[in-house]
């Protein structure tokens, strides 16, 4: 063989040697560290642990989870917390893994899920999570959470999860300078909104910043809410509003019209890119959940100067929420540990540790407002006083199958702009995966 070959081979061997020694070096350390305290402590507390499954793996979410774990550790010193977080895609991958673990009869003790139908339609119907009514009674949670929230996270009179945080979906962000330069007031109704956007478009400003497909679904749910009103919107999800009705047609026409005011490159923008268009002055409005406030804070922008917010047009007085919540698995290997975790997740201390870091508000109405920034304080006020409706995109009002059928119908609509076909597909989706028969 050539010289070059042998030198290359040596290089490869060296490389793998480095890698192997590094692994070898690292390996003995960790078991030693773990083994020592385990032996000391727990002769009788052998099972004192809890495995909690989530998709909070990065950013403020993971930091918030860590803060809550700290609270848990301080309170339950003898329970080991196993953080089973799985990657990616707003929980898509995590849910795939969770589903397979549940199918294999190996559930984690507790897992994260969007409160509402995402949990109910999948796990309650699948017989995988326990009702928590007793825990709610014992901890007095019903009294500290908004009355209108409870039915949305219940199924046949039972409550199945503990919400730790609340985000608001129906927020319209705007650029105050762009609005005042064009003499536009912040719109409160759909008609005012259309008028404002006509003015802006005539002035050469992109009226509404929009991003990739899930942000379009997010926009759709807020337009449905704004156009139908909260009663008819809620009725869509329990079967009392007919998807084939004229008012839904009108709402979908509104949605089609709203799309005409958006940037042409929506499909290529993340929600952050779209949010940035507003603060850069490239667009006037953006509809996005209130995690956008966290993004603006990270960009070191000033509230009400660089950006402003209002409920999406037509939804003043309605708080369209989404919430991350935790469950108790049927057949949980460590039910006591799981219950301890849920108590922390529902407690004032736990929620006050988690939410300021994550950039959301407490599901409880009694958290200390001084822990939160300007936007979140206003959201807390609304959360305590508004009518509560649920978000579609974020799992509250429709089960996973239904939501994915609606998402497909939306995608086809955006590509083809056929309102009648869109409505037909929505009717079919409700019949195949929702409550419509």
């Amino acid at each position, binding site marked *: 063989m050539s010289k070059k070959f042998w030198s290359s*081979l040596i290089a490869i061997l060296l490389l793998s040697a480095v890698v192997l020694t590094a692994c070898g070096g690292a390996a003995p350390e960790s078991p030693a560290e773990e083994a020592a305290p385990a032996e000391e402590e727990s002769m009788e507390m052998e099972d004192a642990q809890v495995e909690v499954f989530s998709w909070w793996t990065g950013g403020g979410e993971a930091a918030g989870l860590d803060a809550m774990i700290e609270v848990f550790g301080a309170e339950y010193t003898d329970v080991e917390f196993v953080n*089973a977080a799985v990657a990616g895609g707003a929980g898509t991958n995590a849910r795939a893994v969770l589903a397979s673990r549940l199918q294999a009869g190996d559930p984690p003790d507790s897992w994260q899920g969007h409160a509402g139908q995402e949990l109910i339609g999948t796990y309650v119907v699948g017989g995988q999570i326990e009702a928590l009514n007793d825990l709610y009674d014992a901890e007095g949670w019903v009294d500290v959470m908004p009355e209108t929230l409870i039915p949305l996270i219940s199924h046949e009179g039972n409550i199945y999860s503990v919400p730790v945080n609340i985000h608001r979906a129906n927020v319209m962000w705007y650029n105050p300078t762009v609005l005042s330069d064009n003499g536009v007031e912040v719109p409160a109704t759909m008609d005012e909104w259309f008028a404002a956007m006509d003015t802006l478009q005539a002035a050469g400003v992109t009226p509404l910043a929009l991003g990739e497909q899930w942000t379009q679904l997010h926009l759709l749910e807020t337009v449905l809410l704004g156009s139908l009103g909260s009663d008819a919107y809620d009725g869509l999800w329990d079967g009392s509003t007919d998807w084939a009705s004229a008012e839904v047609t009108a709402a979908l026409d509104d949605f089609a019209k709203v799309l005409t005011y958006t940037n042409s490159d929506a499909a290529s923008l993340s929600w952050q890119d779209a949010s940035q268009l507003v603060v850069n002055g490239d667009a006037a409005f953006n509809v996005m959940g209130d995690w956008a406030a*966290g993004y603006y804070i990270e960009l070191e922008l000033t509230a009400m100067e660089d950006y402003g917010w209002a409920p999406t047009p037509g939804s003043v007085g309605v708080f369209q929420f989404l919430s991350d919540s935790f469950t108790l698995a049927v057949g949980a290997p460590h039910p006591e540990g799981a219950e301890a975790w849920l108590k922390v997740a529902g407690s004032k201390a736990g929620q006050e540790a988690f939410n300021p870091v994550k950039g959301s508000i407490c599901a409880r109405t009694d958290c200390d407002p001084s822990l939160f920034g300007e936007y979140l304080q206003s959201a807390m006020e609304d959360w305590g006083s508004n009518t509560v409706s649920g978000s579609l995109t974020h799992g509250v009002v429709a089960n996973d199958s239904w939501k994915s059928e609606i998402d497909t119908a939306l995608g086809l609509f955006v590509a083809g702009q056929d309102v009648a076909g869109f409505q037909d597909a929505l009717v079919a989706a409700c019949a195949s995966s929702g409550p419509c028969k």
Partner: protein
Amino acid sequence: MLKNLKLQKKHGLYIPLIGMAIFYLLPMYVMLATGFKSFAEVDLKTMWNLPQGIAFDNYIEAYAKLAPSLWSSAKMVVPAALISSMLGSLNGFILAKWKFKGADIIFPLILFGMFIPYQSILIPFVQFMNAVGLTGIPGLIIAHVIYGIPITTLTFRNYYASLPQELLEAAKIDGADMLGIYRHILLPISMPSFVVVLIWQFTSAWNDFLFAVILTSNTDWPVTVALNNMAGSQIISWNVQMAGSLLAALPTLLVYILLGRYFLRGLLAGSLKG
């Protein structure tokens, strides 16, 4: 005269070649430049601008976040590459030089495994691996070894098939048995194929995302998954993300720079004619 003209013509080729090289390097430039920018400096509009300063903060931050998963990847990739190469060499030897009845059916069956879309086995794969508890790094190693068998077997079989039969016959006359022939005659001259297969398995296991995302959790993510997760599901720091991307690509790039020639052959091994 003619020769001169030809030479000039040849030099003219540098223009399209350099043009193409720029096209191939553009994404690399963006990755590098963005990796050196601060969070506030990152904006789509100014993506072609050079960073205002050369700071390694993003790389340090990205490394801090990715270090555990870089080790996870290493712990997974090295055994996966070694085991599947050994298996491939053994299988290739048997299929090329020690044909048994039915080998002509078995080989194409193994070969076809190289081409299957993973979507067609994904649901059973997820169910099976969880049901038998083969998750985490061990599960990932097994997955890469098994789905690597077709290509490693093919590479070694083609190589061994090209060796003259006399080599074996002579050894047989000397009384060597099958394992003896494999160990003393074929293995020593198999190094080039081993390098090729190791590189191939190394890069494909290192770059894999689908299996990793299904089988691992946050204590043992390989680097592709960690990179994807670094963003969280909400705010993305593109500068750190780009720095992290470069770190994640570094080991394969290094293998590729050090062993370019064999990397090339590794790629060719992916084609049946390899």
